[in-house]
């Protein structure tokens, strides 16, 4: 399974493409592509959003479901989805 990950232009935060061609900070609410055709469709939508200056650098990432949660298989993308592994100084 794949999802689209990107950064929003105006605030830079990590977002996922949704089923209704929107963007969400929550990986749980993003669109899931279960085959290559769906993935290509999502990517085309994402590229259009990039051209429209909504997001930066969108691309597909593989994800799996683990304990009911979506988890990117690559560690780098996992960190992007969940945040730094070290606490933010309070």
């Amino acid at each position, binding site marked *: 399974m794949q999802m689209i990950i990107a*950064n929003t*232009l*105006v*605030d*830079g*935060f*990590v977002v996922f493409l949704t089923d209704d061609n929107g963007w969400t900070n929550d990986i749980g609410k993003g669109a899931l592509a279960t085959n290559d055709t769906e993935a290509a469709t999502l990517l085309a939508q994402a590229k259009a959003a990039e051209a*429209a*200056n909504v997001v*930066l*650098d969108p691309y597909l990432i593989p994800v799996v479901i683990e304990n009911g949660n979506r988890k990117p298989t*690559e*560690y*780098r993308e996992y*960190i*992007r989805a969940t*945040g*730094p*592994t*070290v606490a*933010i*100084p*309070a």
Partner: protein
Amino acid sequence: MYRYDEFDSKLVNERVEQFRRQTERRIKGELQEEQFRPLRLMNGLYLQLHAYMLRINVPYGVLSARQMRQLAHVARTYDKGYGHFTTRQNIQYNWIQLKDVPDALADLAEVEMHGIQSSGNCIRNTTSDQYAGVARDEIEDPRVYCEIIRQWSTLHPEFSFLPRKFKIAVTGSPNDRAAVKVHDIGLRMYRNDAGEAGFEVIVGGGQGRTPFIGKTIREWLPPEHLLSYLEAILRVYNFDGRRDNKYKARIKILVHQVGADEFRRRVDEEWEHIKDSALKLPQAEIDRINAYFAPHDYETLQDQGDLLAEQGKANTEFAAWLKANVANHKVPGYAIVNISLKSLRQPPGDMTAAQMDATADLADAYSYGELRVNHRQNLVLPDVRQSDLFELWQKLASIDLATPNIGHVSDIIACPGLDYCALANARSIPIAQEINARFQSMDRVHEIGELTINISGCMNACGHHHVGHIGILGVDKKGQEFYQFTLGGSSDQNASLGDRTGPGFPADQAVDAVETILNTYVKIRNEGERFLDTYRRVGMAPFKEALYGPA
């Protein structure tokens, strides 16, 4: 410290407005990302894993209390309430939003700060000795020339599109705390036989994928020729540096490929044309800048060694902090205080807005309103009366800034790594924190003695791992984080690049490896011998055997 005049202020304010205009055009879609990216980089704005990151210059590491308070304000108002001090004496904000950057830059411009050229293929922040102007071992104060270089290099129309980034460092002490031998240009100030102050010019040092120790291309350069000579070096680099391969584009590659003698010849040939040009520095200009760095009106005091010894005997924690964190000041009765940003509670180099504000107050109360940032991600209060040290220590301890570990095992340099940085292959901060946690016993820390551990999360070496006594490089091996070790690096006047121990260790064995290395050292060292000296005496063999077993 230097204060902006009308010209400096005008330049920075115009730059703020220029970037505001460029940002508005970008958000409206009038500028595409390929056009905007170089513009935002030249104002210090990166896009990282989670958000934009804004890097603000702290010129040669000198910071006023007023500026520190504004850094706190920016952290609170536009970020998540903290900042990170870097290995080039800068500060980074990890969560800044593009739409807020023009306002953040405007707020910083009010206190004479900016991110101009903190990224991009241009001349970056010129860095220096964090003890400049106050160190007992200082020959000449490098800050004067750092300020002169800063102005010359800011928005230089000829050198804003170099083959790659360019970093300059200056030391005025024979004990080099500025790592000049691993910079693109390193300048070492000293006095010749006639007693005149001048520069040794070292070119082509650097870390990253292909580390090099710099080569001396000019033994003696009088101050009046400083800018013309730098301009000659930059012009040769601008023309002859490689532009076909990003990883071979630094000046160190050029110097290595043509050789120091040929490189020197090219520079001298160019310099002949311009040495007497408008770049020649009049003494009046040197004096004018020098006036900004005049010593404070210090009181006439006696050395307070006895008092401090007594206070230390009564309080062992204070004694440990005195020994590790306090350095000798050139004026009797004064001391240099290092503020450790390496407590266990936060990533190395991080500081909350509350800590920044509190430290600004301490600078005002105890150090003429001035601080320094060093390249090991710690801060300095440069001018503290010895008689104030105990009180200051108590206040620092109350805000977790008094860990007595400067220059010791837990005073670790760690780059942001894969937790933050888009370039990283592995995380560095958790390894640093694990090492710190493993070495919590201050007795153990002081038993190990002087030690620098530097951790980088990728080959770009922002954590300076090549020049750590122990260097750790995080790599990605088939999706797992592995850590490779080097031993025997040093960034001081006897600079050396570390030697690889052998295969890397997975994350859950990395700290054990550190312990193994240090246990080996403690076992075989001569009395009073630092880790670095033991390594240089015995070589890699005993460490390799301890880590990997007999050959």
